[in-house]
């Protein structure tokens, strides 16, 4: 007889039945789990076909010298077969250590790290401040909340264009700065200003998500903890430090990780803010890889894919370290 549900899952850990012996479990394994496998089959197939296979194919491409001139293509009725060849780790060597590797990879890498760190720090700090304010008993709280979520509600590709108009040379931001007799930077031309503008726009877009997540976290903190802290004479700062922050720990670790991953891979904002061709120095690794593969002629497929593999390695290593660090901290804390 098959068992419908594995009661060891979910929240009901307390009253599960004692587990059978190891031999029994192996014996029942397939009988018991066959429909679980049937149900995950669609996802496994979809992921294998549209992620797994392209991934392997991409890794293979990085070991070749493929570009748009030697790939298989069809011009009119003539089909030209692919002529690219296997060159081993040449692309990686070229990207990481080759001539001009600083300009082509390391400068973008450093900028990507700065971009990710700055954006996530700003998202989290501003998001936390706003969440704390929204968590106060206050007239018009719902109204503020609706307005503050707006940057998330409107699709990114729409709001980025709005920023592009506002940041244009004689756009409204520079007109205001002019009226205040302040310097008017060329937001979309000068490298430093481009980077500043990109971080600003991304911060604007990313704060609402952090704010809502942290607000949810704040509201789930048990109010008796605050009462107890107050009885013990804790000041406002001490209550924040020793009740609020620990209470937000699990939400924070999740949203910070998501924020880092999303910011690191943020394509739309930089791509749309500066257009496909300008601003080579403000490109983070993702948009730079896109530029190599699709923004220039001839399109350098192999190098672009190699950047992709490097990006994925960076994010995978980072995520596993993050989890390990999280686990160790949790053990220490309890």
């Amino acid at each position, binding site marked *: 007889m098959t068992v*419908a*549900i594995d009661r060891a*899952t*979910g929240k009901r850990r307390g009253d599960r039945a004692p587990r059978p012996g190891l031999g029994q479990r192996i014996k029942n394994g397939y009988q018991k*789990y066959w*429909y*679980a496998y049937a149900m*995950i089959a*669609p*996802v496994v197939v979809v*992921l294998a076909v*549209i*992620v797994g296979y392209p*991934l392997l*194919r*991409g890794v293979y*491409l990085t070991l070749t010298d493929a570009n748009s001139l030697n790939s298989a293509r069809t011009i009119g009725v003539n089909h030209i077969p692919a002529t690219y060849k296997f060159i081993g780790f040449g692309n990686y060597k070229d990207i990481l250590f080759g001539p001009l590797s600083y300009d082509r990879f390391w400068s973008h890498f450093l900028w990507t790290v700065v971009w990710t760190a700055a954006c996530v720090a700003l998202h989290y700090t501003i998001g936390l401040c706003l969440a704390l*304010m929204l*968590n*106060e*008993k206050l007239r018009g709280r719902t109204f*503020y909340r609706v*307005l*503050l979520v707006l940057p*998330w*509600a*409107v*699709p990114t*590709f729409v*709001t980025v*264009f*709005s920023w*592009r*108009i506002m940041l244009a040379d*004689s756009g*409204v931001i520079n007109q205001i700065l002019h009226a205040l007799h302040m310097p008017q930077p060329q937001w979309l031309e000068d490298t430093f200003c481009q980077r500043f503008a990109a971080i600003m726009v991304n911060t*604007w877009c990313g704060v*609402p998500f952090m704010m*809502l997540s942290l607000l949810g*976290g704040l*509201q789930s903190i048990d*109010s008796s903890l605050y009462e107890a802290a107050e009885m013990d004479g804790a000041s406002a700062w001490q209550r*924040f430090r020793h009740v*609020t922050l620990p209470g937000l720990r*699990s939400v924070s670790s*999740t949203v910070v990780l*998501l924020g880092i991953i999303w910011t*690191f*891979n943020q394509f*739309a904002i930089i*791509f749309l803010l500066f257009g496909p*061709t300008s601003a080579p120095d403000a490109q983070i*690794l*993702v948009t730079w*890889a896109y530029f190599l*593969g699709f923004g220039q002629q001839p399109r350098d*497929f192999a190098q672009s*894919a190699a950047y*992709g593999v490097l990006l994925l390695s960076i994010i995978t290593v980072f*995520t596993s370290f993050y989890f390990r660090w999280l686990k160790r901290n949790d053990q220490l804390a309890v």
Partner: protein
Amino acid sequence: MSTTTLEKTEAGPAPAAQPPRRTRRGERGPLGAALLHGGLALASLIALAPVAWLIFLSLGPEKDDYLHPGKILGKLSFSNYSFVLEHTGFFDWFKSTMIVAGGTTLIGVFVAATTGYAVSRMRFPGYKQLMWVLLLTQAFPIAILIVPMYEIFSQLDLIDTYWALIVINCTTAVPYSAWLLKGYFDTIPFEIDEAGRVDGLSPFGTFFRLILPLARPGLAVAAFYNFITAVGEVAFATTFMLDDSKYTFAVGLQTFVSEHDAQWNYMAATAVLIAIPVSVFFYLVQKNLVTGLTAGGTKG
């Protein structure tokens, strides 16, 4: 869960705002209240400004009006909107966006729901690996897939078809939807499954007849997430759609701004037309979106 009895801290935004005298619970000095309102109003203004500016500019009929916003007030008109609706590919883009987003939603939600159910109810061998893969797939940079996909799809003659975009959008939307739905299925009592089994339903019957109808709110959120992901996708749509009648909104909007000519007024009007329905939908489900997100994440 309830916020009403929460003792509030002044610490985050303005620790200095806490008056030194002893206040009763839930009370705040007038200075604290003013600071709170001031801070929130300023933040709301910043959040609102770019969107409001876009709406304002969309009412100015000339393409250089964004340089002289003061003059727009004197000649407000809806001429941009009628131009966009009558003389651009707006309805073509609308159609493509709907096909792509609708397809992604249908396929994505179905596939994610079965997976979410399986991982919610069962600990099968391979469970950990599957969850790890689902998490990691969300972290995939587009850069790693876009080149091989372009190559594969051109060999299959799928470039410039809706299928290509639907399939690709599923890769980003499905893993997250599966996490979200797992969180939702976890809240449905196991007794319901057991009752269905006792009454003679097959495991699939339990899922389709009992659990799916109960999970409707969760499915709605997942559907919305799929939809919004597909609508907002930029990189693949820009690269894979070549025929301008098949552009999605994300690509179509870029056509107003080329290197030589920028028709900001039409772009603004189109942007407003796109943003309004999407934002309205967004507000209907945003609360569930966040809850699902963090719940799914912390249980991993």
